[in-house]
């Protein structure tokens, strides 16, 4: 090798390196600016667990979008959450949303877990004209004539309309006839509307309600008297609603302790929360309605990403429950809207969302109905509304309905 050849090789290397460096920098200089998503959840206070899990799910889903090239129609722009804590209060939610939405570069909003929080935060985004996406399912959210809110979960009335006949079918298949029922649970707005739906439906099919024991959320200090009543009245089925996990644990422990074998049917996917794994065996046979729970078609990568993200920033979860998986029903849909709109303009995004029609695509994998379109109120269209029924079996929860998404077969009542 001559000296001249070495010099030529070195110079070529430097020139080539310079080109690569320059090209990379050019790319960096011209990279599309991030797409800022106002993300509001209760990260402190009584509902901090629900909010933190929702946030981790949202972050994992955004990272999945970004790792897959971001929003290609916007030059590969990345989704970035601008996070605010709403502190487990309705007023706090409105002010948190207001605070972060002062930034004019906010493109969309996400949150705020509980229907009452979403109710107040959408007051802000409606006024500012920012499309807000949410998993909240109170019917009242879409009864206000708002135009900027989009809800990727069916409303409670639809969910219970699907859920209750399936539960009775399950009993029938097990050779049990449900003649009497009892209500046990907190009396917050969503629970009360669930009880009403149950009462209306059961009245229609001839099931008699023989008792009702409700309390204000967070005030139950001992479940003995309630479960004692359940044992005495001995209904064929108990409709149970709880949101505070401590209260759920008190009820489930007392049910086990008093050896009550009556099936408990619950209107909320919180029942699949991994924190219930301590004593999860007490929940065997409990059935819950959930709009979002990892099922047969949920990509394994999404489950892994959610758990990794959660372990990294929040807690060492054993499995993905409702809260951690909720935002996988929403963030991929938001990304799809951005992709199709090819614009950051909020009005264009709203128009695109209103005309959206997705079915059997990657973005709808986690949605029980496998499709997404919004009706005129901003709620998921009727044709795509479906729910999952989750049941605890041998110490952990599994989806048992619909059959094409189920990971276990349903059972009726404790052994």
């Amino acid at each position: 090798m001559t000296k001249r050849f070495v010099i030529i090789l070195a110079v070529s290397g430097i020139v080539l390196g310079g080109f690569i460096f320059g090209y990379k920098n050019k790319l960096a200089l011209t990279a599309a600016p991030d797409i800022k998503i106002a993300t509001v959840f209760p990260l402190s206070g009584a509902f901090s667990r629900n909010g933190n899990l929702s946030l981790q799910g949202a972050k994992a889903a955004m990272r999945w979008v970004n790792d897959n090239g971001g929003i290609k129609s916007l030059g590969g722009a990345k989704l970035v959450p601008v996070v605010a804590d709403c502190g487990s209060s309705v007023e706090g939610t409105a002010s948190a949303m207001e605070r972060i939405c002062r930034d004019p570069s906010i493109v969309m909003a996400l949150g705020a877990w509980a229907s009452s929080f979403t109710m107040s935060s959408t007051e802000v985004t409606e006024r500012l004209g920012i499309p807000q996406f949410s998993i909240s399912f109170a019917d009242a959210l879409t009864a206000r004539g708002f135009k900027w809110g989009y809800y990727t979960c069916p409303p409670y009335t639809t969910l219970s309309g699907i859920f209750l006949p399936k539960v009775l079918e399950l009993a029938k298949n097990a050779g049990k006839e449900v003649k009497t029922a009892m209500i046990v649970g907190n009396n917050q707005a969503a629970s009360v509307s669930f009880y009403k739906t149950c009462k209306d439906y059961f009245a229609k099919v001839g099931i008699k309600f023989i008792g009702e024991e409700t309390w204000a959320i967070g005030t139950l200090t001992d479940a003995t008297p309630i479960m004692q009543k359940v044992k005495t009245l001995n209904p064929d089925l108990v409709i149970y609603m709880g949101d505070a996990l401590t209260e759920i644990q008190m009820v489930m422990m007392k049910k086990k302790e008093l050896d009550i074998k009556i099936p408990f049917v619950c209107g909320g996917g919180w029942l699949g929360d991994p924190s219930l794994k301590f004593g999860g065996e007490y929940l065997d046979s409990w059935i819950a309605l959930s709009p979002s729970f990892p099922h047969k078609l949920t990509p394994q990568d999404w489950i892994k990403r959610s758990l990794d993200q959660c372990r990294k920033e929040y807690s060492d979860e054993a499995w993905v429950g409702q809260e951690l998986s909720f935002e996988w029903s929403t963030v991929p849909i938001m990304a799809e809207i951005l992709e199709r709109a090819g614009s950051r303009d909020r009005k264009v995004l709203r128009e695109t969302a209103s005309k959206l029609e997705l079915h059997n695509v990657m973005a709808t994998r986690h949605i029980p109905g496998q499709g997404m379109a919004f009706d005129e109120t901003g709620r998921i269209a009727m044709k795509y509304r479906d729910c999952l029924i989750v049941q605890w079996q041998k110490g952990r929860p599994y989806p048992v309905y619909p059959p094409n998404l189920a990971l276990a077969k349903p059972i009726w009542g404790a052994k």
Partner: protein
Amino acid sequence: MENALQLIVSGILVGVSYGVLASGLALIFGVMKIINFAHADFAVLAMYFPTFWFLQWWNIDPFISAAIALPLFFVVGYVTQRLLLERVIGSSESETSTLIMTMGFSLLICNLILIEWSGAPRIINRPYTLETWRLGKVLFNHAQVYSLFISLVLIGGLFLFLNKTMIGKAIKAAGDDPEGCAYMGINLHFIYGVAFALGIAITAAGGCIMATYRPFNPFFGESIVVILFASVVLGGMTSITGALVGGLIIGIIQQLSSFFVTVSLQNVAVFLVFVLFLYLRPQGLLGKKERVI
């Protein structure tokens, strides 16, 4: 009939737990006149550490953790009193200052637990947690029965300490007449520190045993602190025995009220009886015009 018996049994078992926690509160109030809003939060802290984490890390039984919590929280209480509360006691506005300060402690403890161990509710899952003895149709939960006996030992021990030891007698004297104690050469700073530490230690041990049969989260303290105050007032403000009896009464009313009202009105029933009781006996059950501890 069996239902009523079961509810009375449950009321006694729950009430004794309230009584242990309330006795610590009564001791602190009786000696130092501090309304400790963070009282229940110290119990919650003990539910996490040592109880829950010692069980997770080294499989140490919660009842053993209760014994560990006693000296551990004695130190925590003593340091808290000497370093923080001591600085405002004695000033003209000390009652307000300590009230606000303990409210601050409460927030601090709740949020430290939340940051360190998340808001996930925890359960102690031991063989005795849900097992029961049956007497006729009445069930006795193993964990609650063990807790009942340990609670009685704790309160008995506190009672003996206050009545049979020199420091205990000094604590009682400081509660009765602090000025006189100072003239007698009793170091009030030290005595106040010990009284506060004892109150916190017994509460922490009470928290450990309470965790054996009920779930808890960082905000659990909020749901019982009012009941603890009610127990203390019902029992006679400064009386430790009174606090135990107050806790028992509240536990039994809570349970029995479910016969007449829905569970959402349980605490309404408790406070209705509470108000009626105080109307008839304003000084509380065992309260006297002069202090009794």
